[in-house]
């Protein structure tokens, strides 16, 4: 086999091209691969259980600090909510008067994260809900903190989600404060980048980035993250922002798939 090196290299190149031109454009073997994940997922979960417990013990101090901080934040938000509830009621009355129908609640499916692709090149997770539960390709995936990603592949009871930080992910977005619009996409660094902002955009570090109405798969006003760096694009006259996602992907356990 290794005696005819040039000939074998040509064969391998042929196989490479074959895979690229045919298999990338079809959904062949998708179910086979998703079924295989089930076999890997169960032992992985069993092996992960003691590690999770050890991690909890090791990071006890940090968790306790986080608990104290969140407890304070909760008290503050409860206090604010008392004042807000009156505003909400008033708003509802006025909306009724104006016959202004808004649909803020979306039908969604809760799912558990059962695996994560161990690759540095792509950021994907596997969730335990699929076509049986109404999930379709391209649906938005979120959690309480903000945008998580998009459904990329669907099996009968398992799906793959491409994360916000994956280089193949992109979504139309807005800077919440200034309403400047752009396109957010993932990078290999684990952060996101917002491109195509107008050169005169008044973006500042710390500005919140949200999904835009222009997005076909995401509802508008979902939090994507926060601007952490701003620089001018070298390719075109526009501003580029680096965004720290609101969601902590390493701690992702449950997500919501928006059935829209």
């Amino acid at each position: 086999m290794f005696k005819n090196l040039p000939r074998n290299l040509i064969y391998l190149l042929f196989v490479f091209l074959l895979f690229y031109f045919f298999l990338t454009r079809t959904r062949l073997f998708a179910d086979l691969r998703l079924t295989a994940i089930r076999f890997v997922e169960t032992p992985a979960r069993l092996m992960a259980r003691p590690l999770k417990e050890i991690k909890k013990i090791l990071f006890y101090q940090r968790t306790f600090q986080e608990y104290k901080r969140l407890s304070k934040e909760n008290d503050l938000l409860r206090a604010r909510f008392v004042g807000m509830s009156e505003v909400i009621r008033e708003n509802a009355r006025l909306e009724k008067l104006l016959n202004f129908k808004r649909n803020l609640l979306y039908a969604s499916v809760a799912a558990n994260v059962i695996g994560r692709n161990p690759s540095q090149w792509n950021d994907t997770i596997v969730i335990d809900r699929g076509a049986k539960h109404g999930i379709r390709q391209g649906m938005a995936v979120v959690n309480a903190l903000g945008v998580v990603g998009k459904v990329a592949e669907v099996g009968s009871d398992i799906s793959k989600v491409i994360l916000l930080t994956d280089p193949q992910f992109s979504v139309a977005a807005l800077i919440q404060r200034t309403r400047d619009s752009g396109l957010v996409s993932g990078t290999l660094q684990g952060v996101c980048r917002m491109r195509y902002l107008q050169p005169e955009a008044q973006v500042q570090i710390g500005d919140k980035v949200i999904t835009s109405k222009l997005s076909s798969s995401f509802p508008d006003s979902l939090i994507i993250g926060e601007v952490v760096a701003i620089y001018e694009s070298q390719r075109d006259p526009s501003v580029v922002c680096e965004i720290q996602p609101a969601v902590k992907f390493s701690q992702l356990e449950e997500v919501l798939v928006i059935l829209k």
Partner: protein
Amino acid sequence: MRKIFFILGSTFIFFLLELLIFNFFSQRFTPHLMLLLIVFFYLSWGPRHSLFCALWAGFLKDCFSVTAVGSYTVIFIWIAFLAPVIGKYIYRKGSVFLRILLVFILLGVEFILQCLWQAVSGHLEFSVAVKYIFLPETIITLLVTTKMFQYLRKCVLKLSV
């Protein structure tokens, strides 16, 4: 037949290990255990077993990926194919340094193939990929190479008894 089962089992276990390290410890500093296994089987049992390992490891990796079907399989087969070609020129039996050098070169080859794959799909930032993927992965993989090879060698010796 025992060798085949050993390859299937060890590849599966090391894949789980890679999955756990990636999810629980460090995403950047995850050693490329699959590549180490491919090289180990080439050095111990020859190219055919190495190719078999590449095929199985590639399939497992592809299950979790949303990129082109079989992208990892193709890349790992290339690695298994190039390991004997490169090894023939640089590797001398018993030399730890040359073994690490072989792993280093194959990590470079794998990185280039991944870059080509990413470039075809239009998402490649080469300098970022070198800084955030190649360097950390190479450092940690080379650090664990000797220990992992020693451990696998013991398992293989037990298997042959």
